[in-house]
C-alpha cells in the first residue's frame, strides 16, 4: 500500500496538482484511505456471506468514531492489521448472532466498558503527553461519543432490541480491550 501511495503521490506532483512540500501529507492520506477502503471491502464481503450486512453497517457506524477518538492498539504492518480487523469483525458478527443476552446484561456491560474506555483513554493521552489543544478536542469528542453510544444502548434496552444491544456490547468490549493492550504496551515501553 505504501508503494502504491508513493507512486500515486508522485503522479499528482508530476501533474502539478500539489507541491513537493505536501508529499508527506498526501501520501499519508492515500495510504490510510486505500488501506481503509480495502479493509471495508473485504469485511463487507464477509458480512454479506454471513448474511449480516445490517449488523456490519451498525458495527462500522459505532466502531469507527470510537476507534478514531479513543484510540487503541495498532499493528506494525498493514497485512497483520487487515487480518486482525477482518477476524475481529467476523467474530463479532458471528458471536452477536449466536449468543443471546438479556437486555439488562448488554446495557450494564456496555455502560461499564464505555466508562472504562473513557478513563483508559484519558490515562493513555496523559502518558503520551498529548498537546493541550489536541487533548481538549479529543476529550470533548470522546465525551460526545460515549454519551451517544450510552443513549443508543439505553434505547436498545427500552425497546428490547437484543441483537443490536449485544452487538454494541461486543463493540465496546473490543474498544476497551484494544485500549488495555495499548496501555500495557505503553507501560512496558514496547514499540508498536
Amino acid at each position, binding site marked *: 500500500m*505504501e508503494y502504491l501511495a508513493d507512486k*500515486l*503521490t508522485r*503522479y*499528482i506532483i508530476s*501533474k502539478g*496538482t*500539489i507541491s513537493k512540500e505536501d508529499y*508527506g*501529507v*498526501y*501520501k*499519508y*492520506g*492515500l*495510504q*490510510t*484511505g486505500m*488501506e*481503509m477502503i480495502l*479493509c471495508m471491502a473485504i469485511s463487507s464481503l464477509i458480512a454479506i456471506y454471513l448474511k449480516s450486512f445490517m449488523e456490519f453497517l451498525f458495527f462500522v457506524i459505532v466502531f469507527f468514531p470510537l*476507534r*478514531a*477518538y*479513543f*484510540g*487503541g*492498539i*495498532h*499493528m506494525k*504492518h*498493514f497485512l*497483520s*492489521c*487487515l487480518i*486482525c*480487523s477482518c477476524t*475481529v469483525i467476523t467474530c463479532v458478527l458471528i458471536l452477536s448472532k449466536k449468543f443471546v443476552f438479556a437486555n439488562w446484561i448488554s446495557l450494564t456491560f456496555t455502560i461499564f466498558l464505555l466508562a472504562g474506555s473513557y478513563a483508559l483513554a484519558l490515562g493513555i493521552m496523559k502518558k503520551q503527553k498529548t498537546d493541550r*489543544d*489536541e487533548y*481538549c*478536542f*479529543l476529550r470533548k469528542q470522546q465525551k460526545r461519543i460515549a454519551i451517544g453510544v450510552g443513549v443508543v444502548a439505553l434505547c436498545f434496552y427500552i425497546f428490547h432490541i437484543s441483537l443490536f444491544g449485544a452487538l454494541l456490547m461486543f463493540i465496546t468490549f473490543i474498544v476497551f480491550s*484494544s485500549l488495555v493492550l495499548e496501555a500495557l504496551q505503553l507501560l512496558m515501553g514496547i514499540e*508498536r
Partner: protein
Amino acid sequence: MKQSKKETVKQTILSDTIANIALTFSKIGANSKCCCFYHQPEKPDLKKLRKF
C-alpha cells in the same frame, strides 16, 4: 492537437480527484487518534489540517 488537449484535461481531472481523496483522509487523520482500524502509518506533520 484536440486529442492531446482532451487527454491533458482527463489527466488533470484524475490527478485532482486523487489529490482530493488523499486530502480527505489526511484531514480525518489530523483530527483523530487513528483512522485505520488496526494499522497506523507514520503520521507526517498534519497540524495545518487540524480543526482545533
